[in-house]
């Protein structure tokens, strides 16, 4: 979703305060109740930073989630935003409704692999199709953490539970699926790679439409052992970034990061840009075919590639399709939502 709106561009934040004068503390949530070391907590942290750095007004943030350890984390950042921990697997529809009611909201959805790829598969697909403006983060640990570690639909074929049980079903690759469904912002990351994650989150916040971030986020209690393909060790040993990524928000000049010759610059409609350092093999995120190809190839090579696979700025988001007035529908005054008496008369006359 766009971070434009009431917030006008301001100079870059100095020191600890951001462009709207808030410190990172203003973006914090309640203390986490997750297991110590859980990947999800690291993502929570990155989200906090990203919103802070982007200078999003906290009260405009709608934190949507389903049910699971991952889904709990919306309570652990941005206490000054509104949170909605809905039902298991059906957050996408709730988020869709929320942004329909209020197009000024900056929505972030936090879900788990179970919540999205098992029970939530259908709603995820249709959220993406509608290009609902939301930063959609899947905290992917390959298991159901909250119900004690059963396999989810993203568990890799052949990966092992602590009990020795082996998963013999193929995983759902949410990135490939999202790209094929027309999603214009599709990324994969790793909760241990904070730098990449924050850059991706910032770009996602600036993006107007559905931004899918599939983040491997180890479950230290149930899926961090040997034989797991979603453990910290596995992630560290197999991670391969597909490019080096930079994000320049709308109120900064793009040349502060890389100069244009040394990088691919993808401008977003709001004035921000995503930068990719021009090195050999750096993946150009505008290349859909390449994105799908490398996703397919990693899949068979059992690599764990991260980065921004696909970026297509400028697709109309749900708001564009619905063509609603600029103000939030939810708080329009009565005169604007109750047609005049003449309208009723016209309707009645047509029925005579």
């Amino acid at each position, binding site marked *: 979703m766009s971070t434009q709106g009431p917030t006008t561009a301001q100079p870059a934040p100095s020191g600890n305060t951001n462009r709207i004068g808030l410190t990172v503390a203003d973006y914090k949530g309640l203390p986490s109740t997750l297991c110590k070391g859980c990947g999800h907590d690291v993502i929570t942290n990155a989200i906090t930073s990203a919103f802070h750095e982007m200078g999003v007004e906290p009260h405009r943030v709608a934190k949507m989630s389903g049910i699971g350890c991952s889904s709990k984390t919306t309570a652990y950042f941005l206490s000054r935003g509104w949170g909605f921990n809905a039902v298991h697997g059906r957050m996408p529809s*709730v988020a869709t409704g929320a942004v*329909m009611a*209020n197009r000024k909201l900056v929505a972030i959805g936090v879900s788990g692999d179970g919540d999205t790829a098992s029970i939530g598969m259908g709603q995820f697909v249709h959220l993406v199709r509608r290009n609902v403006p939301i930063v959609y983060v899947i905290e992917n640990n390959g298991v159901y953490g909250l119900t004690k570690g059963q396999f989810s639909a993203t568990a890799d074929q052949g990966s092992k539970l602590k009990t020795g049980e082996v998963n013999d079903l193929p995983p759902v690759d949410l990135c490939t699926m999202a790209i094929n469904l027309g999603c214009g912002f599709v990324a994969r990351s790793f909760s241990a790679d904070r730098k990449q994650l924050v850059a991706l989150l910032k770009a996602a916040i600036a993006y107007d439409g559905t931004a899918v971030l599939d983040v491997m986020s180890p479950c230290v209690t149930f899926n961090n052992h040997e034989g797991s393909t979603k453990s910290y060790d596995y992630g560290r040993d197999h991670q391969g970034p597909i490019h080096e990524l930079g994000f320049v928000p709308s109120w900064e000049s793009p040349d502060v990061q890389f100069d244009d010759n040394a990088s691919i610059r993808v401008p977003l409609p709001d004035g921000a840009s995503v930068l990719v350092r021009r090195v050999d093999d750096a993946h150009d995120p505008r290349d859909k075919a390449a994105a799908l190809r490398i996703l397919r190839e990693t899949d068979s090579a059992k690599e764990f590639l991260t980065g921004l696979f696909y970026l297509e700025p400028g697709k109309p988001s749900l708001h564009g399709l619905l063509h609603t007035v600029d103000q939030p529908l939810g708080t329009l005054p009565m005169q604007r939502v109750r047609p005049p008496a003449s309208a009723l008369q016209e309707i009645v006359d047509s029925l005579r």
Partner: protein
Amino acid sequence: MPEPAQEPIVNRLSIQVATVNGSGSQTANNTLLRSIFQMGVPVSGKNLFPSNIAGLPTWFTIRANADGYIARRREIDVMVCMNPATVEQDVMGVPPGATVLCDDTILKEHPRKDVTFLALPFQAIVRDCCPKVDLRKLVVNMVYVGVLAEMLGIEVAEVEKALQKAFRSKPKALELNQAAVLAGVKHAREHVTHRPRFQVRRMDKTAGKVLVDGNTACAVGALFGGATVLAWYPITPSSSLAEAFNDLADRYRRDADGKATFAVVQAEDELASIGMVVGAGWGGARAFTTTSGPGISLMAEFVGLAYYAEVPGVIMNVQRTGPSTGLPTRTMQGDVLKAALLSHGDCKHPCLYPADIGEAYEMAAQSFDLAERLQTIVFVMTDLDLGMNLWMADPWQYPTKAHDRGKVLDEAGLKAMKDWGRYKDVDGDGIPYRSLPGTPGGLGAYFTRGSGHDEHARYTEDGGAYVRNMDRLARKLDTARGLVPAPVADGKGRKVGILAYGTTHHAVVESRDQLRSEVGLEADYLRLRAFPFHPSVRDWLAAHERVYVVEQNRDAQMLQLLRMEWPELAARCISVLHYDGLPVDARSVTDQVAKHEKQSPAMAKGGAR
């Protein structure tokens, strides 16, 4: 013009047309209905159609009644047979004395001697009057309209007017159809001597009224009720409600620059449509969905979330015959118990039961006020009979009251309220104050969840906090009793009462007259309009010795709700049920009540309470 042989029965008749769906008879039948209506005669139409798109039997029944009875009537006086597959059952189904018009390519004669069976050359007539070969299949229906007009005394000028309305923007089609009607009139005038005893004559009982279906009425209610978000999934018989709202809003709810003050999404299923409603209600919209039986089941989990997290939203349930897929194109009041109790765990939900076009409009609009006031899901429980059939009605009144947006605190409101807590019972009515996401000022942010929470919306598993919250929710539902539409009582002081709700009303109105005239029973009448029940329902039950609870389902669902509420009073209730999927008719009610009254010892003794 030939006159009927016997003393005519005027403006008291039922016409049924048996045809196949997809054959274009709908326009013809509506033209017939509208013509009678324009002659000032009260009418009602019931379309009995199959659950497929084309080719299966369909029956359309028009009842004209000078007394204004608009319930279904079982006896058919004039039958039009256009469907070979059902002709035998159609002819056998009419009572002695009826007139049967039959397409002569289907059947030329029939052994029944107690009815007037006329085989008419509808196909030949249309061949002569309609040059467009491919359209004859459709236009033939207008031939029987013309024949009936002539035979029953329906004024041709009114038929023409009705045709003009139907084909306003299609002059070519209008011409063809007019020609067919006139050909029918001519044929009847020249070749048919029989005139049925049942005749239509101009009167003045429809002046100012409209003809409209209940789904449109609900859509208009939602339009003026300020609905801003509709998320829906197609399902018969509710789809046309959503589609009507979409069309109306498209026309009446756009700014000059074309931007909409509403948003409609066709969801991927009912879990998604109710999820969107819950999200939108949370976000501040007046949000609703439309559905029927299976959709209600699929919405169960979200409805429980909305109850517990206190999110407003409206579900318009156009009930059809269940359980399961059931008979998708038949009517029933079959979700009454299920909607009120929907979702696992302890929870109940307000329900409104519109009986007619006026209430469909009013309750649809009011449901948004109630949902926002009570911060919960409100059901508008209409049914296929109300929703998809055409009803005669008074025009709607423009609302005089402002929308009630409930206890919503904006930035200033939040500042003014000390130590605001999302789930605090400040006013003692069980209804807390809420804030909307996006409210600036830094005071309103809170966390919504379907898991345990305390007065300040903080997560808790504390048993005490849980009980306090659940008790407050029960209190809130008690508050609802005084906010929902009160029941409507007619008559008082009699020993016997009849209780009904929704579309059953129309049969009860007629049945009370039948009971009075046929068995001398004077019965008071209470029409329920909402759950949870208004306290006056209790008093009314207590004031009667025997109460017949009339409803359209097998399990006496409303009676079950009454029993749950007041078992000691419900014991005096006797269930009168009708559940074959057709709208209940007065005769069914009258016969059951009369039979029971005969057996009732109290009645025999004639004793007062």
